[in-house]
């Protein structure tokens, strides 16, 4: 229940913002890696919303997740400009490569790197351009190495 105390602090810090729900959900996900289901009643109480409303928002937005991701979150751009330069083949390769690994693979729709695709993002911090299957394997090997 350590989580709940942390969540309570996060909600308390943001609850007076106008339209506080998205900032609160972002902060929880940033701190815990996901939005635990047990946080929903707490947020509902603090923001004076129904649990259904909170659930509706969490499930509507692709960015929010209710389960913990793997050790790293790898996002591959699947939008048009990247598709046009081999993004789909890369995504397919990545799916096979990461099957059963402790990394989570997700599609993302445009990282704003359309001129240097296929593009890839790791943990919302690191970006990579011109990602070929070979370069992808090298990047994943580096992630595996720094356990």
């Amino acid at each position: 229940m350590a989580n709940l105390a942390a969540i309570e602090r996060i909600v308390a810090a943001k609850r007076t913002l106008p339209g506080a729900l998205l900032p609160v959900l972002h902060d929880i996900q940033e701190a815990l890696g996901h939005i635990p289901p047990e946080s929903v009643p707490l947020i509902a109480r603090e923001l004076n919303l129904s649990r259904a409303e909170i659930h509706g928002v969490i499930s509507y937005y692709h960015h929010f997740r209710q389960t913990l991701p793997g050790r790293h979150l790898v996002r591959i751009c699947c939008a048009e400009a990247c598709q046009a330069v081999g993004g789909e083949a890369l995504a397919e390769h990545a799916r096979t490569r990461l099957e059963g690994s402790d990394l989570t693979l997700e599609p993302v729709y445009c990282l704003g790197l359309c001129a240097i695709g296929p593009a890839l993002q790791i943990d919302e911090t690191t970006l990579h351009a011109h990602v070929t299957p070979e370069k992808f394997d090298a990047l994943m090997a580096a992630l595996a190495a720094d356990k």
Partner: protein
Amino acid sequence: MKARVYVPRDAAALALGADAVAVAIAAEAARRGIDIQVVRNGSRGMFWLEPLIEVATPRGRIAYGPVAASDVRSLFAAGCMSGGVHRLYLGATDALPWLKRQQRLACRHIGVVDPRSLDDYLADGGGEGLRRARGMAPAGIVAQVTDAGLRGRGGAAFPVGIKWQTVLDAPTSPDCAQKYIVCNADEGDSGTFSDRLLMEGDPFSLLEGMAIAGLAVGATRGYIYVRSEYPHAIEALNAALVGGRDWLGDQAGNFAIEVRKGAGSYVCGEETALLESLEGRRGIVRAKPPLPAVSGLFGQPTVINNVITLASVPGILARGRISTVALAAVARAVPCLSSWPATSSTVVWLKCLSALRCASCCTTSAVARVRAGRCARCRSAAHWAPTCPSRNSTRCSTTRRSLP
């Protein structure tokens, strides 16, 4: 003064290894005992040359690229700090063929300034629009934006002045006397990353544009809704907000801006869905009317504009009021003006105006000099020979029409 070396922090440059280059440059300079300041600027947009580093020399900024961290040692050995020649040497940045022919308006500070430094922005001519707007009546600001012909860059090309006028005229409800400026930075369409380029490379222009919009319609709060796929843009905006708080909140203005992060919904780029999202709900579009200009964020009159739209505003205010009379006089004297495509009116007006030459004295006009339709030097009225858009050519490169 420390020698300045520019290494972009734009997401595209980062994806191509700019951070490692910046680290290598700092280390190599330290090893050689050279005192340098590494400035993390925005990208000039030439991604095929990124990471494009620039060194400030007495000859101007000299560019090298694309630079890998492993090139840094040899760059220093070649004397890059004084613009020495190297395999990656590109010459003066401003003389690069792709840049040389451009006239940048909304993007004029990108890549030039340090996006985290308000002083840099002000030194590069930023802030003038807000300074002028502070001395103007709201209706005057709206009129100037209307006269400039600025249209929304979010896709629909709606005239900005008309939208602002609606918000200026809209009454607030008595229980919540608050109007809002909302910036649409949801840029969801693949292939378009100009909003990102601007937010990362020149966030102060956007903040300034929003503050001017606030003065124009009587709003004191602004929100920038940035998609979650752009963490670096969010970081750049927040850093600029810290550096620019006093400047934005200056005396009369007192404008407060907050950056809000989207959450991966394409539909939230639509303005009413975006407002729903800002209010903490699912991004489901609202029925119109009422327009957001009448009943927008939290039911209050709201200006909602795209990033580039708002960032174009400071330049318009900074140029002073171009009277419609002067414009009409110029338009009469410039046959090709009437056939410019209407959608890109601002850019084209300014492009034409700044490329005019007085037929009597041959002075090339700066925009300010054609005010009231007279040449600032010889005082003759409306004898403007067009040389647009490439100066000194007598043929308009858009209409292909030869001029008398």
